[in-house]
């Protein structure tokens, strides 16, 4: 069975340190740049591009409308997200990769 576990939002910015870590039901679990984890620390010293994968998850049960609300909240706050990928678990196992 496939259940919604969160969302990866890809945000186009240089101001990555200020991307919200909490929004509504969601908490940022990690942020990566070109597949390398930056948040939570420690982050490697590396050059970055201006496109950040931000993984939001929730302790609460979430649905598609919650993801819509998260996206709307970030847009309203001026953040440009240009790709979103819902995260699923299949039979309770994460069906998405983790960054290095």
């Amino acid at each position, binding site marked *: 069975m*496939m259940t919604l576990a969160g969302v*990866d939002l890809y945000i186009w910015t240089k101001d990555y340190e200020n991307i919200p870590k909490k929004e509504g039901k969601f908490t940022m679990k990690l942020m990566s740049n*070109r*597949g*390398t984890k930056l948040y939570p620390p*420690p982050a*490697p*010293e*590396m*050059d970055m*591009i201006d496109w950040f*994968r931000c993984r939001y998850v929730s302790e609460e049960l979430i649905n598609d409308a919650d993801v819509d609300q998260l996206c709307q909240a970030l847009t309203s706050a001026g953040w440009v997200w240009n790709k979103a*990928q819902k*995260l*699923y678990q*299949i039979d309770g196992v994460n*069906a*998405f*990769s*983790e*960054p*290095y």
Partner: protein
Amino acid sequence: MAHKVCLIRGDGTGPELVAAVEKIISTAQVDIEWIEVEAGLKCVEAGKPIVPEETIAKIKEIGIGLKGPMTTPIGKGSVSPNVTLRKKLDLYACVRPVRSLPGVETPFKDLDMVLFRENTEDLYAQIEYMVTPTVAQSIKLISEFGTERIARAAFEYARKHGRKKVTAVHKANIMKIADGLFLRTCQKVAQDYPDIEFGDNIVDNQCMQLVTRWKSYDVLVLPNLYGDIVSDLAAGMMGGLGVAPGANYGAKCAVFEAVHGSAPKYAGLNKVNPVALLFSATLMLDHLGENQARKDIEGATEAVMGRGIKTYDIGGSTSTTDFADAVCAELKG
């Protein structure tokens, strides 16, 4: 003053290969202070990350490392220690020299190429999802930034080492967006190097040309996945992974490693070829400015191989330690 170098002994056959290389470098009278750092299976067994943060920090501090082969544990959640090092140290350029060696029989005579593989992005960004229960998607991430720095590294190397031509390898006829960006960026960088000939080739055609017209190629620059595949093809052309060296360079650090695995089934058998790690170490000596030592060790090794003293993988029966002793004797002689 001694050069400081971080040393990862590795898993499986790694420690015996590292011991052979240490002995040869010592015989060549290069003064190196080896600073041992932990990584690999022992760390996992002790409940630590496969590459602990202390190891990353130490290599960053010292700026250079030599690494024996390590094992990626099989199973869910396991990560490759090699990819972890490349990502966390931002070692963006994997450099693989490919050349003919005496005593190594292959159909490919007079090989002399250098491959530059982008090391940090492409499908190796490892961004993957199950998007339905029966559909998976991996993201191929190519950036202008990532491509420009590997292309520039390839051209700078060509200029420094008197190479004549750089060829960008891609599949832009099909992946017009991602590989198209890679190709366009390489073309743009090439304009800054009018003294170096530039060409490009589609990856499947490049594989065919490598085994039919290898003398037409000099320096190749490739995105991560094609680089992974083509560099092993090229290693096979020079005689196999047992003789294929590798180096990983970043802006601030460099880590030198044999490109083969840890071969755990041969651990302790004193059998595995140390040449790949030894020639990775001579690339390290070059990086340290010990050019004469590099020439001495490579010359001694080739002389030994030319006399038919070689390990099982290239048709000999010499043990790891006997091979190392023969190189040491040649250096002293």
